[in-house]
């Protein structure tokens, strides 16, 4: 008599099972939704971090060339920076020389190197003279970079669209991603009357 009682006690009635399944389903659904949200958040955060890293890299590339710039031309997502022709054909540094006006040049007087930054097909490139353009950031179709020439300094601003909200980033959210940088132009400019320091 005792054994059958124990056997019944170990099982579940239908309504018990249904309640348990309902609770389990609800918890599972919550967990799955939470997991999906967490994953989306992780993806958005990873995307933000990756984009921010890209923005920092683009900023550093631009700063590298702006510091030694002789002249600057820029529009949105396009910047042309002229720098001294420091290297010879073999890639070694050249000895500086002075022209008749006391201006410094490398190689031959008037020799320059043109660096072109541009966004094309979701990739930002850096091209030096006629050499093949080098990728400096990929999958950045939502990036906007601007170089503003202020004479003795130049500022750069880079923004992208964060993906935290599926309906799209607001203007404020995009503005919040901006990476700003101000660079002192060390060289005497050939396109303005401003000079060093």
């Amino acid at each position: 008599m005792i054994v059958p009682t124990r056997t019944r006690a170990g099982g579940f009635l239908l309504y018990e099972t249904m309640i348990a399944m309902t609770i389990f389903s609800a918890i599972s659904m919550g967990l799955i939704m939470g997991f999906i949200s967490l994953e989306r958040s992780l993806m958005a955060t990873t995307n933000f971090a990756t984009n921010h890293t890209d923005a920092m890299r683009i900023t550093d590339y631009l700063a590298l060339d702006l510091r030694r710039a002789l002249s600057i031309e820029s529009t949105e997502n396009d910047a042309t920076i002229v720098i001294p022709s420091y290297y010879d054909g073999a890639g070694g540094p050249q000895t500086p020389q002075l022209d008749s006006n006391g201006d410094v040049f490398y190689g031959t007087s008037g020799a320059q190197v043109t660096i072109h930054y541009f966004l094309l097909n979701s990739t930002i490139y850096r091209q030096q003279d006629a050499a093949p353009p080098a990728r400096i950031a990929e999958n950045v179709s939502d990036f906007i970079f601007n170089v503003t020439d202020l004479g003795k300094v130049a500022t750069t601003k880079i923004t992208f669209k964060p993906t935290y909200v599926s309906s799209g980033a607001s203007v404020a959210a995009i503005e919040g991603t901006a990476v700003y940088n101000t660079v002192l132009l060390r060289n005497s400019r050939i396109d303005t009357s401003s000079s060093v320091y």
Partner: protein
Amino acid sequence: MKTNLRRQENGSALLWTVLVITVLSLFATEVLRLVSGRFQLGLQAAAWQESLMAAESGIDLAVVEMRKSLYPAPNHAWEDWENIPGNGVVSHGLTTIPNAGLASTPMTIEVNVDAPAQLIDPSTGWQYYRIRTLGSMPLTGPPRIGFKKEDNHLRKLTLRVQRFIDNLFTSETNSPHASRRLEAIVAPLSSFEQAVFSVGALNLNNQNIVIDSYDSRDAAKSTNGLYDESKRQEHGLIATNGALIQAGNAHIYGDVSTNSGTVTGVANVTGVQRTDFYQDPIPVGEPQWLSINPTPSQVNGTATLNASPTKGSIMSRYRLSTLSLSGTQTLTLAGNADGSPTYIEIYVSGDISAAGNSQMVLGPGVRATIYFMGNVDIAGKGVMNPANQPANLLFYGVHSDSSLARHVNLGGNGQISAAVYAPEHDVVVNGGGSSGHVFGSVVGKSVAMTGVTNLHYDEALAAGGIINNYKIVSWVEDTR
């Protein structure tokens, strides 16, 4: 039965526990991998930026030594460096600077300064200097490259083996570090870079004074080497290390600069008004001439001192205890009759004065440089500079350890055409002849102008005079 059931439950719990821990561990590992990688990237980027600051500090260290070398001896320039750069000699300095950031890792600055023959200005003969620096910062953490090759192409780091070896710098090792190399070219600057520079107060007094510039070397900026209003230039810069310029409704064709100060009475400024100006008023030392023309030792009446066709000739170097003219006395600085260039240098260890109807006269072609320790009071007929070239008459106030106030009062009935560099003297420019026009440049401890209606700065002065500063004119980063 119970025992068997318990064994099954225990096994299931263990399995689930291991599974959950495994999943969590994988999750944590991935998160750590992502986070530590980005942290490492951030750390490396910071070290890379810091190494640029180190390299730029190297340029500053070299420029400081160069500026120190401009001071009268002993100036302690280039102490603890290998050599004094110049004439092909390379100087080398190595400095380690404690760094509070980045785990207190010290930054290393290595500097080379030389003076290549290619960097001699053909127009002035002045030597430019090349400063090459290496700034390096140790990298903390594991020697690991970044996720993306683009980062590695930009920030070139030494992680296990020294990435870049040249024959110039020796401080780099195989240990993980970031390094940046810079090359700056530094040009000497004349003591006459501005139309007016005052260490302290600058008072132009006169209403509507016009300050502009011309270039006596350039036919497009002058006529027959003389000022031409129709060819007026806009390099009539006025500046003070002080906080106040009283311009008296001036019209400035150039920039106006103060040291966090204000400018009053400026009606028109064609350039910019800066408030971040400071320039070291580098003193002029007593001339260290090994030999001089011993006679005369003083001038107290009409006299003639002869210039020489050879610059720096012993025969045209005079050391006078005093130079005093009065009545109708005349001091003539005589050159060649044909007006060919001749040079004369005079050091007056006492005062210079010209009163009554006395005057000083430069002969044709004479380039005079007059150093003075005491006061200068020039009135009477003033100084006659017939070619009206300010570069032909340069006055330098010599440094004194005395705290006694000294002054320069430059005036007289004649046209004032001269350049004055006296950063320890209070300088007053009076008149400027009947027209009130003054040609040249004025530097003083304080500067005031009385009766001057026009000051025309000759840009040719910037290519002469003594060197009293250095300026970076070219800057390149070696990105190999």
